[in-house]
């Protein structure tokens, strides 16, 4: 019952300014879910089916089920409302109202309520209370509401006086009507022409007609005036009823308005004046639609001015309890609960002295928690999980009862998923999957935009991109210069650079394959040379040289070995020269000489076989 009452009160009093505090009430948002930022953006109410029609929809309607405020066809989530956040923080930052003026104002209101108390009220105390209203209205905190009440009371009194005058007029009219009725009756009795009716039937009929005509003419002024008097009486009656009803409705509207504005002390003052002004026992609240159902649904009875009075008293009591709970929780360092209780109390009793007089130091503690909580919410909304985690730790230290489960779950989930995407991005980069790299990086960025790992990876990738571009330029240049050895000497750089370029990768593969062959020949040549077999070493180098004449290192080794195996090399050269000059006999002789000098010579053997085939084409 109490919760329902509070919810209804919240709905009624939420005059477009309030909502429950944005205090560590974290929505568990899925990573990458894109929660709406800011929280102040209203959502359109689909169809407007649940929108309140209370006071024509001009007053917000609080839905405790969804914790939303519906107003003007739009919906706000009270857990995430920037307007209330600002208002609540302003309250927490403001000094308590402990000045002389505040005390004096509260004292006057208390005195008015005392004088209007049902047990004490009489015409004298009523007048005294009425006289205090202008005094209370002089205080800025009152915002002139007591003047408004005073004006309404005065208007009601004036209306009552008008009604008295109408009653006096009715009395005059009533006597006038009685006189007219009597005159009419006398006129009807004394209006005979005289004589008796003739015996003749025709003459008798004419005589009767004349008699009737004479009576009608005599009575006509009385009948007409009587009708007018009756009409005036009816009109006055209707006017009086309407005026009374209008005055009541105006007064009730003021009371409801004060209730909506959460000016509960003023509600009590107004309802007590109302009862004094309209002492006819008719306190039925003339509201229709959802407003009526709200009040009747809460109390289970038709709404009356007394309902509002009771609700206002209940709210004042509830606010007092909320403030006591806040102070107790604050002493226990349970800042989250304390701040929530204060926020709830603030929503309802923003203008009550119990709220206005909370010490500033106590409010500052709540403010620190609220600010950290709001920062945490903002950090989660913008997906700054590093800051969010830091704030969670901070809140854990300051508030014993801080529930870190939701924010930590959101943070850890986001971190884990982001780390997975970054790992995938790295794998994609290594495997040259550019599309995969971009996709994974985009996913990781969407989940945790300020992820320090992401910045590091991006920096690394961009840095690699610069190095890669330079390496590719160098590769192209060296390739055009046929400087394969330089490519080979820096192969690690070019392998990495061409990882994502299949065309260049193929060229590099060819270069490296050739260079591997050259290096193998050089190694073999060196090995053979170490054994003292210069001819064999030369032949190994020469074979590679014939295939790769541009390699400087190979050329250098070959030149050195040519000197060391001069006779063998000379014999082969002479053999080849004579072969080219079409002297197979002499050429073969020189190949044979070379073979004599280096029996294992493949080149000499090849020359011998070649020339033998030429000399004996059908040799077996």
């Amino acid at each position, binding site marked *: 019952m109490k919760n329902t009452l509070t919810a209804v009160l919240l709905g009624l009093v939420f005059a477009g300014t309030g909502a429950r505090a944005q205090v560590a009430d974290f929505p568990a948002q899925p990573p990458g879910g894109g929660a709406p930022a800011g929280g102040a953006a209203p959502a359109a109410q689909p169809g407007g089916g649940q929108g309140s029609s209370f006071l024509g929809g001009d007053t917000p309607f609080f839905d405790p089920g969804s914790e939303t405020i519906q107003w003007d066809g739009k919906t706000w989530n009270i857990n995430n409302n920037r307007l209330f956040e600002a208002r609540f923080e302003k309250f927490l930052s403001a000094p308590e109202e402990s000045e002389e003026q505040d005390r004096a104002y509260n004292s006057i209101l208390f005195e008015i309520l005392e004088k209007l108390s049902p047990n004490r009220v009489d015409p004298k105390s009523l007048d005294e209370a009425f006289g205090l209203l202008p005094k209370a209205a002089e205080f800025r905190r009152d915002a002139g509401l007591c003047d408004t009440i005073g004006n309404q009371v005065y208007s009601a009194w004036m209306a009552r006086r008008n009604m008295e005058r109408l009653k006096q007029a009715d009395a005059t009219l009533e006597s006038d009507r009685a006189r007219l009725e009597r005159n009419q009756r006398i006129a009807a009795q004394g209006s005979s022409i005289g004589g008796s009716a003739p015996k003749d039937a025709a003459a008798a009929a004419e005589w009767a007609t004349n008699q009737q005509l004479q009576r009608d003419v005599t009575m006509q002024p009385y009948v007409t005036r009587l009708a007018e008097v009756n009409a005036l009486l009816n009109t006055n009656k209707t006017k009086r009823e309407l005026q009374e009803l209008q005055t009541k409705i105006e007064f009730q509207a003021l009371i409801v308005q004060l209730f909506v504005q959460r000016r509960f002390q003023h509600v009590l003052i107004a309802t007590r004046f109302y009862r004094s002004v309209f002492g006819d026992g008719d306190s039925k609240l003339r509201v229709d639609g959802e407003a009526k159902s709200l009040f009747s649904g809460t109390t289970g009875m038709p709404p009356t001015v007394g309902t509002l009075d009771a609700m206002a008293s209940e709210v004042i009591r509830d606010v007092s309890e909320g403030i006591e709970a806040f102070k107790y929780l604050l002493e226990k360092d349970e800042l989250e609960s304390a701040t929530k209780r204060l926020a709830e109390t603030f929503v309802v009793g923003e203008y009550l002295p119990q709220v206005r007089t909370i010490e500033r130091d106590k409010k500052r503690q709540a403010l620190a928690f609220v600010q950290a909580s709001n920062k945490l919410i903002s950090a989660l909304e913008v997906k700054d999980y590093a800051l969010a985690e830091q704030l969670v730790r901070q809140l854990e230290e300051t508030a014993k009862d801080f529930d870190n489960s939701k924010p930590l779950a959101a943070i850890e989930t986001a971190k884990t998923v982001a780390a997975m995407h970054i790992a995938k991005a790295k794998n994609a980069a290594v495997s040259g999957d550019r599309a995969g790299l971009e996709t994974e990086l985009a996913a990781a960025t969407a989940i945790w935009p300020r992820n320090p790992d992401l910045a590091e990876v991006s920096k690394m990738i961009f840095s690699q991109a610069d190095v890669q571009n330079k390496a590719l330029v160098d590769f192209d240049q060296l390739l055009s210069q046929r400087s394969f050895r330089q490519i080979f000497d820096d192969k690690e750089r070019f392998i990495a650079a061409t990882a994502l370029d299949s065309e260049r990768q193929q060229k590099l593969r060819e270069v490296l394959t050739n260079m591997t062959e050259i290096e193998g020949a050089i190694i073999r040549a060196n090995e053979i040379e170490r054994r003292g077999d210069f001819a064999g070493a030369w032949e190994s180098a020469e074979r590679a040289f014939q295939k790769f004449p541009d390699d400087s290192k190979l050329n250098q080794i070959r030149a050195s070995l040519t000197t060391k195996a001069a006779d063998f090399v000379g014999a082969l050269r002479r053999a080849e020269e004579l072969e080219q000059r079409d002297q197979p006999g002499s050429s073969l*002789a020189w190949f044979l*000489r070379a073979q004599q000098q280096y029996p294992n010579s493949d080149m000499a053997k090849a020359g011998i076989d070649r020339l033998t085939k030429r*000399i*004996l084409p059908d040799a*077996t």
Partner: protein
Amino acid sequence: MARRSRSSNSTLLVVGIVLLILAFGAGGYLLSTSGDAFRTTAPLEVPAYLENSNSLRGNTYKAEGEVLNQLGYSPSMGRLISVKIDATSDVVPMLIPASLSHVNIQRGQRFIFKIEVTENGILRALDLTKA
């Protein structure tokens, strides 16, 4: 008388020795000339051949040397062997035509070849004999 007899014996001895020397010399000469079947043929000038075989085309020479290897064999054209020439220790190729296939030629054997420098500078054996 006796002095005259000793003097004539010495003369006979000298003549006999001279005749014997002459006989040995003639025998040796005959022996030495009777094994060179191609003694009228000029020996091959191996350096010239190695330098430019074309310049020797059409000439006939003789060469003595050791058979080193058979390089190839053609039933129609014969066999190509390598011969190490005694005079220069150079190795030259030599074509033994099919007409000389009746001669067994084996590695390490020594032969005296009568050879002709053919059109393309190949040494083709015209005849051969074991050395």
